[in-house]
């Protein structure tokens, strides 16, 4: 059920173009209602009326797309300019951004090269307007739009790199244009993209401001470190979202350390700005968790993934109630939901931890069997889980004019790197299986279980050492550990006393009491309902 938005045009004078019949086509094939919408929209942007803009962006736009523009595109920019009148340069740029987003979403094979190029030019215009003006631009947009701009920017860059590496995605005459673009390096090249993102960061001085906010001991006011640009809401938010956009870019290029460094000052707490936009929160958690996974910080990664899954679960019911708004946008949250489970399975297979009950039960439903295989040392299962869970890596420099599709190369590289690391850690699940059965065990006996002969005994000791190394998270730049002293990180731990392994098992008793209490309460609720029912005695 979609909501019709009422447009208040009573004060503006465009009456010479208004007709009473709203469904008859106007000039240039633009329905009247759409024309009214565009005029109203541009006025709201001018007046910086953020709540109205949010409604227009979030609901009216998809609504109109659904009704009028199912099979054809929104009107061209020149048409729009004629409708809303001259002098609205910024609005035109913003409109074009939405226009190109539509293009990308509609074409399953991806848009034509010329559109990609034009879209990039539009972004350059938008960002140069924002970054090169002497004073902060008087523009206020809702958070979700700002985030979408940055997110789409990174996404289109990703799409372009994949496009470059895949000759199958283009037709013959585009090849020459592509050669041209590559030679001049003027569209979707990694350097301008990085430049724009970093410029947003430095213009808004977001890093300094976040650092100031974090150092609560000194209670430094972020305004003291930021100039007028930094203090402007628009730039602050753009800078903030640009941080997360950069995080994503770094992960796509395989630079996990830099990715984490970029967002080190972004506090993961419910008051952060990222909470206002669901896709932003999901993106942040996913990429941070993934970076930790690649850096072997399984504990941190698990925490991130579980948080994200809980959030999606909580908001899923809310989202289902609202009408499906973004019919043209990629279902980010749905896809990430699936990916998170696979990555979580990998983390828990190597380093089991206690996690929230509801997530744990869903995880065992989806990936239970896979986790069992992984625990038995089946490398292929790791490969499959990783391939499903990882993002679409890209290589910014690969250009293939003809021949084989090379867009999957970076993905293969990261998978290979990951699996090579897993092989070294393969001992863990296998060892765990044996250690669970004993409280003390001589090393020689364990060695014989694992078919290790005397010659390789020392290598076998290496396996024990690896286990402890990973479990104790040696060498990790550990953050402040939670004060959960009675809940150890792993379920099985051990130490070696000369040649005897002493094993410590952590058993968690079943929470029988909690179970009973919950059901007693449920029963009482049911009894209440029954009492209120009218039961006719026979």
């Amino acid at each position, binding site marked *: 059920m979609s909501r019709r938005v009422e447009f208040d045009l009573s004060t503006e004078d465009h009456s010479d173009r208004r007709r009473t019949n709203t469904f008859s086509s106007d000039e240039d094939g633009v329905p009247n209602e759409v024309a009214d919408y565009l005029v109203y929209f541009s006025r709201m942007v001018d007046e910086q009326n953020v709540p109205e803009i949010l409604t227009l962006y979030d609901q009216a736009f998809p609504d109109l797309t659904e009704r009028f523009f199912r099979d054809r595109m929104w009107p061209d920019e020149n048409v729009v300019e004629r409708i809303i009148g001259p002098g609205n340069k910024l609005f035109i740029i913003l409109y074009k951004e939405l226009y190109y987003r539509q293009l990308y979403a509609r074409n399953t094979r991806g848009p034509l090269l010329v559109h990609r190029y034009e879209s990039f030019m539009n972004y350059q215009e938008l960002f140069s307007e924002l970054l090169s003006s002497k004073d902060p631009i008087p523009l206020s947009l809702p958070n979700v739009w700002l985030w979408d701009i940055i997110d789409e920017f990174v996404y289109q860059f990703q799409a372009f790199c994949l496009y470059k590496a895949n000759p199958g995605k283009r037709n013959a005459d585009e090849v020459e244009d592509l050669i041209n673009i590559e030679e001049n390096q003027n569209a979707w090249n990694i350097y301008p993209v*990085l430049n724009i993102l970093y410029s947003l960061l430095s213009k808004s001085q977001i890093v300094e401001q976040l650092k100031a906010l974090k150092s609560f001991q000194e209670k430094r006011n972020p305004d003291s470190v930021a100039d007028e640009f930094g203090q402007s809401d628009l730039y602050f938010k753009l800078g903030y979202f640009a941080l997360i956009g950069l995080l994503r870019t770094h992960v796509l290029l395989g630079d*996990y350390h830099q990715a984490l460094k970029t967002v080190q000052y972004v506090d993961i707490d419910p008051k952060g700005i990222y909470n206002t936009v669901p896709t932003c929160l999901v993106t942040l958690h996913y990429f941070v968790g993934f970076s930790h996974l690649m*850096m072997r910080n399984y504990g941190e990664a698990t925490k991130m993934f579980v948080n994200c899954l809980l959030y999606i679960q909580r908001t899923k019911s809310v989202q289902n109630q609202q009408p499906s708004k973004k019919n043209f946008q990629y279902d980010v949250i749905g896809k990430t939901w699936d990916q998170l489970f696979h990555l979580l399975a990998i983390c828990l297979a190597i380093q089991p931890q206690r996690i929230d009950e509801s997530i744990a039960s869903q995880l065992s439903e989806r990936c239970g069997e896979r986790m069992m295989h992984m625990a038995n040392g089946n490398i292929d299962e790791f490969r499959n889980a990783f391939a499903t869970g990882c993002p679409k890596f890209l*290589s910014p420099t690969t250009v293939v004019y003809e021949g084989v599709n090379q867009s999957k190369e970076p993905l293969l590289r990261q998978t290979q790197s990951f699996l090579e690391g897993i092989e*070294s850690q393969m*001992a863990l699940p296998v060892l765990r299986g044996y250690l669970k059965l004993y409280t003390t065990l001589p090393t020689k006996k364990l060695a014989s279980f694992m078919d290790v002969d005397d010659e390789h005994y020392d290598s076998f000791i290496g396996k024990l050492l690896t286990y402890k190394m990973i479990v104790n998270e040696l060498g990790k730049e550990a953050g402040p550990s939670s004060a959960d002293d009675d809940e150890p990180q792993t379920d099985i731990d051990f130490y070696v*006393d*000369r040649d005897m392994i002493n094993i*410590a098992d952590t058993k968690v008793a079943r929470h029988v009491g909690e179970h009973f*209490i919950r059901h007693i309460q449920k029963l009482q609720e049911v009894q209440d309902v029954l009492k209120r029912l009218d039961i006719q005695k026979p």
Partner: protein
Amino acid sequence: MSFEKLQKELHEAIEGVNRYNPENVADLAACVQAMVNENKYDKDIVLTILKLYQLNPEKYDEAVVRQVLLKTLMVLPSSDFALAKCLIDTNRLGSQELRRIFDLGAVLESCNFAVFWKLVKGAYKPTTNPNEPFKVPGEVPKMIKPMVGFEDAVKHYACRVISVTFQKIEKKMLSRLLGGASDKEVTALAQSFGWEAKENGDVFFVANHEGTIKTRNIDEKIQFPHVADLLTSIQPPLTL
């Protein structure tokens, strides 16, 4: 120029977006060489140069990449080696030398010190297995020789892992894990890690893990407030 000076200059040069300035490649490579010679390390510089090679393929220099990878191995158990591997594109991996370094890395990451020392001392006998990674074991010590302090770094790494794993370790085993180190060397390392010699120096007492690692039973704790509501609102069962 000395490592210190290079490091300071470079840290300024790679601030923010300038990190990706391809002009820095030459200085970064010089710094890596200084790291090799002076047994120093800087994670940022090392990862930056790999990144620049990734974005500017025409500047790629495999010798520097090899040095970088070997330096990351020296800081195990940090995951720098894994990070470095992720930054090298697939089309670079054909070279045998790089392959060899990766295989050596795999050995060290799985704490397989026995194999490592055999390789370094030249006592390694390659199997006839077609997947045998070290067909020409002599190449490994040659590769490691220019890296100052490589063997010491590995010994240090081994000791760290031993500290968390063992409560008591026999001197013979310890010496084997440290590559047949002499008594004097073993004692010196043990002292620097705070291990005590017991039983006439045959056994080293590493750390008291008994206190921290023991079986726990996490029992359920039901607190009174949870059941308080329940107790006050108990109703008689429904009768129809």
